[in-house]
């Protein structure tokens, strides 16, 4: 049945009148996603290609029954936008915005948890349940419906690996970009738990990178709780310590957060780690037969 989003999801796009917001809102709708509302304060009452715009998320929830929010607002206003969605009762809040201050995310993370809201991102490409719904900026052409759950800290690398799967005839249940920031709303484990309970998902691909210890935690969790095959990839073996590699969260601090340590932890938990995206495709093909 895919996870987090499907054909029944009702999506509001916060920041819909911006360039990115309108472009992707329409792309997501073209894919078949129910994009039923947009929010831009002060522009309520307008429409974007037939999608009604509201001044507040609460207005969109009341009029259109939205349950999922997609946030494109600039970094300095993004935490406020998340709070507005959380407080309006939206269940899944997906934030694409890059560059949000980490102290803002500390508070948003704990507020969302306390309210029982699932936060995806920030600094992420969103998520896609192929054939059902696309919420975010993921290019749909490299995905196809199937049985592999994909969870990743990186956008383009997710597309690359989905491409490796799809060209081998392997489809995906849902691909979730959890984001490249040091503090993100959902961790690998949060997503793995859902893949574990999802009937459509037969195997999982986890795409990690340097920084933090979420891959290590996910490895230990999967060994204990997940009875589906897991294949992993880790980027950043050649990254020097102390340098931020593009993503705010991709940094080796002292001796912590190296790709080598993550690979070791994953392999110790019985998870195969591909040496490049292409090998990930081969390993998944092997695991499914």
């Amino acid at each position, binding site marked *: 049945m895919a996870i987090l989003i499907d054909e029944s999801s009702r999506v509001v796009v916060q920041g819909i009148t911006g360039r990115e917001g309108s472009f992707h809102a329409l792309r997501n709708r073209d894919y078949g996603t129910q994009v039923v509302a947009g929010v831009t304060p002060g522009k309520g009452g307008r429409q974007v290609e037939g999608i009604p715009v509201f001044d507040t998320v609460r207005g969109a929830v009341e009029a259109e029954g939205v349950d999922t929010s997609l946030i494109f607002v600039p*970094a300095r206003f993004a935490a406020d936008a998340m709070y507005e969605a959380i407080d309006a009762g939206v269940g899944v809040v997906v934030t694409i915005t890059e560059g949000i*201050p980490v102290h803002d995310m500390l508070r948003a993370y704990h507020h969302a948890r306390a309210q029982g809201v699932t936060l995806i991102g920030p600094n992420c490409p969103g998520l896609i349940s192929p054939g059902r719904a696309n919420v975010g900026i993921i290019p749909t052409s490299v995905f196809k419906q199937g049985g592999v759950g994909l969870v990743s800290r990186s*956008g*383009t690398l997710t597309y*690359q690996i989905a491409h490796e799967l799809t060209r081998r005839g392997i489809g995906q249940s849902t691909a979730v970009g959890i984001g490249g920031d040091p503090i993100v709303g959902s961790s690998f484990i949060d997503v793995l738990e859902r893949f574990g309970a999802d009937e459509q998902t037969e195997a999982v691909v986890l795409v990690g990178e340097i920084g933090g210890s979420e891959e290590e935690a996910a490895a230990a969790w999967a060994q204990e709780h997940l009875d589906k095959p897991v294949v992993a990839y880790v980027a950043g*073996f050649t990254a020097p310590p102390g340098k931020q590699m*593009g993503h705010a969260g991709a940094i080796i601090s002292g001796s912590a957060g190296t790709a080598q340590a993550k690979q070791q932890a994953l392999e110790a938990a019985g998870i195969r780690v591909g040496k490049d995206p292409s090998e990930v495709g081969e390993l998944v093909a092997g695991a499914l037969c």
Partner: protein
Amino acid sequence: MDLYEHQGKELLGCMGVPVPAGRVAFSVEEAVAAAEELGGPVVVKAQVHTGGRGKAGGIRVVDDAAGASRAAADILGMDIKGHTVGRVYVEEASDIARELYAAIVLDRAEKRPLAMLSSMGGMDVEEIAREHPGAIARVHIDPLLGWSDYLGRRLAFESGLAADMGPAVSEVMARLFEAFVIYEATLVEVNPLAVLADGRVVALDCKLTADDNALFRHADIAGMRDVSAADPQEQMARERGVTYVKLDGEVGVLGNGAGLVMSTLDVVANAGGRPANFLDVGGGAKAEEIVHALEVITSDEKVRVIFFNIFGGITRCDEVARGILTAVDQLRIMLPIVVRLDGTNQEEGRSLIAEAGLENVYSEPTMTAAAERAVALAGA
């Protein structure tokens, strides 16, 4: 963004953390003036964004201005782990009775700030953790509640400090946390936090890392960036808005998306090459952005080949191919260039590269093949 010790101490001082009096100096003359103004014995300390200053001879205690003059002359211009010392901090010498370790860090795994206090100050925290694992007291702080005084008491008692030192140390921990929040830091480390002979508790060193993403709210901190200390290519990249990290190999790498570029570096290494840099051209990859990126990469004289690794998503490969061809033509790049285009409109993109017929531009269909070609060309 990492701050220098003197900048961090200035910020901590504003938050009420006791710090010794001191002056920053960019020349021997300024160091002498600072020592005369402070009077008495002073410490002259190299200001660099790296640890191990003491072992490298970058910290000297001297009796007077004449001593400060000699110390500053020795230390200014010194190389410490690849960092050239451009400034020293001249600080009144302290009569240290005891050295503690104090820090507030962002604990990514717990998604909360973590306060740490240890009675084993003066050494590196990883060393304390390794050699005296029980000697670091730790408490997490709920970001929605903020600091509460019991946290400071717990840290003081659990790190085994004598009861009479507890209140002063607890107070410093509360002030450090306040600084962590107000300056939107990801690290505030004071090592050593010194207990002086007269019982006062003062911060003798300070490592403060500010969140780059929050600098728009902190013009004062943003203004502390030392442009002269940055690597020339990295500085050039910052001015052009390019996400770039200098490495030390020969294969210049650029691609779209941080994860894909990190993966590209690894694939180059797997093929036996050494990447020269990390560069993410981002999602758009227009000709102008590619021009900026190539200017930065080619300013590194070690680069012998350029490897474009593009996965077309919403940005189509044919658009990127046009951008690459325009940029290569505009900059008249003679270095060999290997282009790998995959994803949306890959065939159209590859045809454009082939049709252009440029002698130094090679198209390869996969990451692995492209990396192998680039590594071979770098060695040729």
